[in-house]
Each structure stands twice: as structure tokens, then as C-alpha cells.
């Protein structure tokens, strides 16, 4: 509405303000419990981003979130509210963990490939169920995927306590994957593994898919207008199945990778709380369903997570306060941050406001 100059300023402020505000509010809370906020933030930034090891760890944690973020983005962008990535992730992680343990004798490279391929397939099969219910039965995908996630978690818990239980362990877990299945760490100190390379490769592929390919075009069109997409022959039903399969595969690989590079066995806290799938949703939304946006958002969010542990270790700030600050940052970011900056070719003129 205003002139271009001031709208530019607004845009820039949009990027910086939310983070500053979140840090400010968080700072008040930290100061209220008698700690020095600057010191705490310095720990966060220096440990998670500025130290070599810390940054590598940040990348490590960003990896699966990038994948789940992409998994969400490709469906959300098409207006398909798929929340099944958490389930695909668990399914993929579980199967990778089982195969990694059972087939420990197979040489390293084929074994990893088998595990990740199986993870992708299981993720896809899982996603396919909800896709078919959506397409054949017209059931609301959001409800179906959410319900399936809860059900799957219970099924996996059952499997991990019965058929696939690691007998030697006092808690619920599957056997540890063999050395051959584990992704080796690149640097001795950090947790970063070659899996991150796979993640980046997939990110590049997804960049092409979402921005250059026919499928990406159809997804965008669906996201804008289902009716238009159907009328111009994009066969919405088929496309829904396609993107759900891609989404499932991505989340499955995320789970498989998380298993082989970090967890090594399935436990009830495999994907932690609230879960890498949910994190992916946050990241996809913060990154405006754009691959580059997702990359940045995932690294940013992973930094918050890595930083959280450092703060817990090096400052007298309980982990609940750190979660509070994380939540505030997310809250403030919801009000457009990465969105405007990285979103791709959005028509400048928005629908008129009366």
C-alpha cells in the first residue's frame, strides 16, 4: 500500500524484529531467574554456530529435519495437510534399525543402501495408506495421518517389546545396528556423518523437483486452486498419491538416516519430543515450503536445539526456560520472517484488502 521504499524497510524489519523480540522477552525471563541473558545467548551462539564442532553438530541435527521439512513442504504446498511424516519417519527408522541389526554381516555400503532403501519404502507404504484413503475414500488426510501416527507408534512399541526386542536391555529398544550399518563420523569430535551429504543431495534434487519440474508445477497449481489443477488435467488424485509417496519416502529416509547416524536402535524416544516430524512441519512453514528456506530454517532450528544443551551445561538455566525461549522465537517468527525473503516468485500484488 505504501511506497516501495517503506515496504522494503518493513520487509527488513520483518526479518530481524521477530528474533530480536524473542531474545528480548527470553532475556527478561533469564534475567528474572538471576542469570545474565547476554552470557546465555553468547553460549547459545558460540556453541551452536561459531565453534567448529558445535556447527557441525548443528548440521547433524538439521539433517533429518531438512528431510522432514521437505516431506511436509511438498504436500502442504499442494494444500494436502499431510501430518504423516512423523509416522513415516518412525516406520523408516524402525525398519532401518531392524535391518541394520539383522543384516550386520553385509558390507558397509550395500548395507546402508539397503537400510535406507527399506526405510524409504516403508515410509512410502505408510504414506500410501493415507493417500489411498484420501483419494479413494475422500477421507480428510489430516485426520487420517494424525490417527495413523498414534496407532503406528503403538504398533512399533509393541513390536519393540515383543518380536524385535533387544533382550539384553532393561528398557524398551531393538537391538543395536551393526557397525557396517552405522554412518561413520566425519570428524572425530562432532556427530556429523556422511548422511548429511545424502541430505544435501536430496535437497538439491527436491529443489529441482519443486522449482523446475512438472511435478513442482502441478504441486504449486494444486496449492493455489484444486479446481484449476483438475480442469487443466493435472489429475489431482494421482498427484496426491505421487506427492504423498515422495513425502513418505523423504520422511522414511529421514528416519532411516536418524537411525543409522545417531540413534542406532529404536527406542520409545526415537524421534524425541515433539518429534522430528513435527519439527519438520515447523521448519517447512518457517521456510515457506521453499527448499532454500527449509535449509536455513532447519539449520536455525537445529542451532537452537544444540545450543539448548550447551546452555543447560554451561549456564544455570533449566531446560524449561530454554524451551520457553525456543517457543517464543517460533511464535515471533510465525509473523513472517523467512517467508517474504525466500519465497519464490510470489505475485507482488496481494489480494486486495477491503
Amino acid at each position: 500500500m505504501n511506497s516501495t521504499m517503506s515496504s522494503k524497510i518493513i520487509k527488513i524489519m520483518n526479518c530481524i524484529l521477530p528474533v530480536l523480540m524473542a531474545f528480548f522477552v527470553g532475556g527478561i525471563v533469564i534475567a528474572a531467574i538471576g542469570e545474565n541473558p547476554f552470557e546465555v545467548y553468547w553460549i547459545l551462539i558460540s556453541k551452536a554456530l561459531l565453534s567448529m564442532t558445535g556447527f557441525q553438530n548443528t548440521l547433524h541435527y538439521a539433517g533429518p529435519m531438512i528431510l522432514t521439512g521437505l516431506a511436509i513442504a511438498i504436500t502442504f504446498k499442494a494444500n494436502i495437510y499431510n501430518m504423516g511424516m512423523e509416522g513415516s519417519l518412525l516406520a523408516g527408522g524402525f525398519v532401518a534399525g531392524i535391518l541394520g541389526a539383522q543384516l550386520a554381516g553385509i558390507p558397509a555400503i550395500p548395507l546402508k543402501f539397503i537400510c535406507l532403501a527399506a526405510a524409504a519404502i516403508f515410509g512410502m507404504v505408510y504414506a500410501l495408506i493415507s493417500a489411498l484413503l484420501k483419494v479413494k475414500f475422500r477421507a480428510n488426510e489430516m485426520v487420517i495421518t494424525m490417527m495413523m501416527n498414534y496407532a503406528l507408534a503403538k504398533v512399533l512399541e509393541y513390536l519393540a517389546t515383543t518380536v524385535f526386542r533387544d533382550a539384553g536391555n532393561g528398557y524398551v529398544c531393538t537391538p543395536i545396528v551393526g557397525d557396517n550399518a552405522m554412518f561413520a563420523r566425519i570428524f572425530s569430535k562432532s556427530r556429523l556423518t556422511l548422511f548429511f551429504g545424502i541430505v544435501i543431495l536430496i535437497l538439491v534434487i527436491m529443489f529441482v523437483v519443486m522449482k523446475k519440474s512438472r511435478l513442482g508445477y502441478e504441486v504449486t497449481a494444486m496449492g493455489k486452486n484444486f479446481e484449476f489443477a483438475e480442469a487443466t488435467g493435472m489429475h489431482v488424485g494421482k498427484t496426491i498419491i505421487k506427492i504423498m509417496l515422495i513425502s513418505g519416502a523423504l520422511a522414511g529416509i529421514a528416519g532411516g538416516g536418524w537411525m543409522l547416524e545417531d540413534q542406532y536402535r529404536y527406542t520409545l524416544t526415537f524421534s524425541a519430543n515433539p518429534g522430528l516430524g513435527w519439527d519438520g512441519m515447523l521448519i517447512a512453514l518457517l521456510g515457506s515450503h521453499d527448499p532454500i528456506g527449509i535449509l536455513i530454517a532447519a539449520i536455525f532450528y537445529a542451532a537452537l536445539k544444540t545450543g539448548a544443551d550447551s546452555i543447560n551445561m554451561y549456564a544455570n538455566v533449566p531446560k524449561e526456560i530454554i524451551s520457553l525461549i525456543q517457543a517464543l522465537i517460533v511464535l515471533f517468527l510465525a509473523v513472517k520472517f523467512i517467508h517474504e525473503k525466500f519465497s519464490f516468485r510470489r505475485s507482488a500484488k496481494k489480494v486486495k484488502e477491503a
Partner: protein
Amino acid sequence: MNMIQTIDLTKRFGDFTANDHISLAVKEQEIKCIVGENGAGKSTLMNMLYGLLEPTEGKILIREKEVNLKSPTDAIANGIGMVHQHFMLIPSLTVFENILLGAEVKKHKCLIDEKTEIAKIQELIEQYHFELNPMDKIEDISVGSRQRVEILKMLYRNVDILILDEPTAVLTPQEVDELMVSLKNLKKQGKTIVVITHKLREVMELSDSVTVIKHGKVIGNMETKDTNEQELAQMMVGRNVILTVSNNNMVDEQAEIIYKADNISTVNIFGKKVVDNMSFCVRKGEILGIAGVEGNGQSELVKIMSGLMETTEGTISFHGENITNIWPKEIRNKGIGIIPEDRYAQGLCKEMSLGDNIIAGYHSRKDVCKRGILQRKAINSKRDKGIKDFDIRVGDINGAVAALSGGNAQKIIVSRELTANPDMLIACQPTRGVDIGSIEAIHKHLLDYAKKGNAVVLISSELSEIMSLSDRVIVMCKGKITGEIEPRDTNMMKVGLLMAGIHEEERNE
């Protein structure tokens, strides 16, 4: 007294000036028509008068007093009501609920008193001689009825200035006539009316005075009796316009039948047969018109033909091949182009770029998509060619379709469908809401296309359009074909009867 007067009213959207120092006056109890090309700034002007947009500069005077309209509420308080180009109705609510929205009648302090409401609306409907059932849901009634609801909504609020933005674009000829009668009645009852329209016939018939707007400026202001259609058209478009193109090529009656529908039927959500056992065929090189009052199954028929709806019975064949219930993409691949009924719902995606829209439906073809990857360069050159060949006026060539005027947006679709060079074209309401310049262009394209030996199925609620373009017309009523006519030797009267479902034989009895 001037009911409305604007003085140097200006509206800018960013760097773009949509209304440029507009000064005009509407006298008490007159019907004023405003005409102009698509995108000339008519709706913008009216939106300012209704408080939906705030003027950048200039003054608005109502009953010769300056007003500051911040919202529609202010406008209504000043006695101004507006019926928008795109209806502002709530489909899931009933007629009476929609009319009373914002002015509910209550009982027991908080509950809505439905009984009283219905009675009141019934009374209102009778007062203005409208044909409506207050209990019907908006989603179930015809477009014409919806329009009447919109008007009643304003009348109920006791406005004495009524603005109608392209009220006739979506109406059938009968409905247009009814509307004109209603408007003239309203005028008699003391209302002042402003009508935006692209149809010069209506201007001549309805209005007392006309204002022509071009590029956001007033370029003409006259009494209707002092002007004529041709002059208005010339002012608007800036050149001579042929107001009615006519089809004067002769189709060989023995020409090959390329498209054949056999006893097709389908049902709507309520299980009602809306397309009932229809059979027809289309020959090479002919334009087959399908006429009918809106809501008699044409939309569903087009949906079946374009793959958006399934049949319950019957077959469709094209070039002898069975294509019943195949999907839109396959239909296009077989060589049938589709200009859909609702341009912004099915034909175009407003938020996508021109390039993305110009390949829609053909985006899998080799020229723009290799191994699943879209070829940007090819798309852009296709877009540029389309813009050139079809004389499409765009501001930003990389911009979105939303920035185009209705006529130019429609030309994007026409260009897209014709460039693919199909054997047959399904053209549904190809000129709805489009200005006369663009209508002329689109009609020409259709005729040229048919002349090349291709077939066209033309579905339109604009009877004159059908009659002037078609070689053969079938008339529909209640999902059935009620007759087939040769437009060149049929009078409108007969068509009207067929549209009402009365067969010639019956009449003769």
C-alpha cells in the same frame, strides 16, 4: 439534486493509477451507466463509493454533502448500496439469512427470530415482485436469483442509491430483461441507480445517461438519447468495432462427424438427473451452439465433455474412439481444446504467472517439458508468441494473471487452447464479462478456427452470441435436448420457447 458527485477522485495502487481525477455526477432518480474496457477502473471507482477502497485524492459528495466513507457501513448509512461484480453471498446460508446478514431480527435478546425474518423477507420479495423463496439456500439457486438476493440485500437496508457492477454478465437474456424491468421499477420508486456494464444494448435500453471511462479517466459523459452503440464502442475502444460478427461460412452437411455423444446422463449431488439422455454430434468445420437457460444442465454437460464429471450412462466418442469419462488431460491429448465456464476457477490460476498459465493443460507436452523438467525458455517464448498473436495486453510480462483484466485473461485461455491446434474446441461462455473490444477479437478467433475445418462446441448464455456464431444450435431444457435449429432461419421467439421446454409440436397441438 446530484445524489452522487465525485470531484477529482483519484486512486493509485502503488505506482499504478487506476482512477485518475474522475469527476462525475449522478442525478436523483436517474439510471446512470458506466462503460469502459476491462481494467478501465470502473469497479475501483465504485468500490470507493461503497467505502471498500479509500481514495488517494479527491472528494466524494453524497446529496451534495462531502462524505468520508471508511467502510461499507458508512456507505449504507449514507444510503448507498452496492451489488458486486462477484457476489458477496454466503452459499451455505439461506436467502433470508443472506439478505438479513448484519441486520438480524432477534428474540429473547440473543436468539435469531427466524419466523419473523422469513415473513419480513417474504413481504420484501412481494413488494419488489421478485421471484424468490426465502428458505432456499444460496448454493442451490440460480445465478439470476442470487443477483436478486444481492439487490434485495441492499433494498432491505433502505438505500436510495444502488450501484450494480456488471449485473448482467452472468444472467440469461430473460433474466436480463427481468432485471431491467426491476431496475426501471426501482427508479420509479425513487431510487438512483448506477450500473456498470459491457453490454451496450443494455446501456441504450436502460440508462438516462452514460459515462465512458478509459485508462482511469472520464472520456465521455452524455445523455443516452444523444448517443448510440457504435459511438460508445468507438469511444471505449478507440477504434471502430464490429459489434456483431456473423458466421457466413457454409458447412458441408455431409462432413465427417468427429464427436458424438450417445444418450449421456449424469446426476447431481442430490441424485437428480441434470443431464438426461442427451445425444448429439459435431461435424468437422461446424460451430455447434448449445443454448439454454442457465441451470438447465449446460454446466454439467460441459463438465462431462471436459472430463470434470462422470456420466451415469451413455458414451462419447471422438473420431470413432470411445472417450467416455476419460480425464481432462487425455481429452486434450486426443485433440479437444477446452475453454472452461469459470475462467478464474477452472481456466486460469490467478496467482500464477502468465507463462505458467499459458502451458496449463499442455504442460506435459514435449515442447515445454523434457524428462519431467519444465523448459523455462520454451515456455517464455510460447507466452510471448501467444501475447503477440492474440494481442493480449499485459503490464508485467513476468507478473501474475491476477493483474490482467477480464478480457485479457480470457484471451490467455483462448490463445492457450487454440495454439495447441486441437481438432475440436469446447468453448463455454467465452466472452462472459469481457469488454466489447475483446469480444470482437475472441469471436473472430473462433470463426477463423472453425473455418480451418475444425469443430467448435459453443455453450453460452448469451443467446445473440450463439445465434450469430453457430451453424447449428441445439436447445436444452431440464437436462434434455428440446430441439435443434438452424440459426439463420429461426426467430428468437422459437428459441425462447424451446429454452422454456416447449416443443414446436406441442405448441401446434
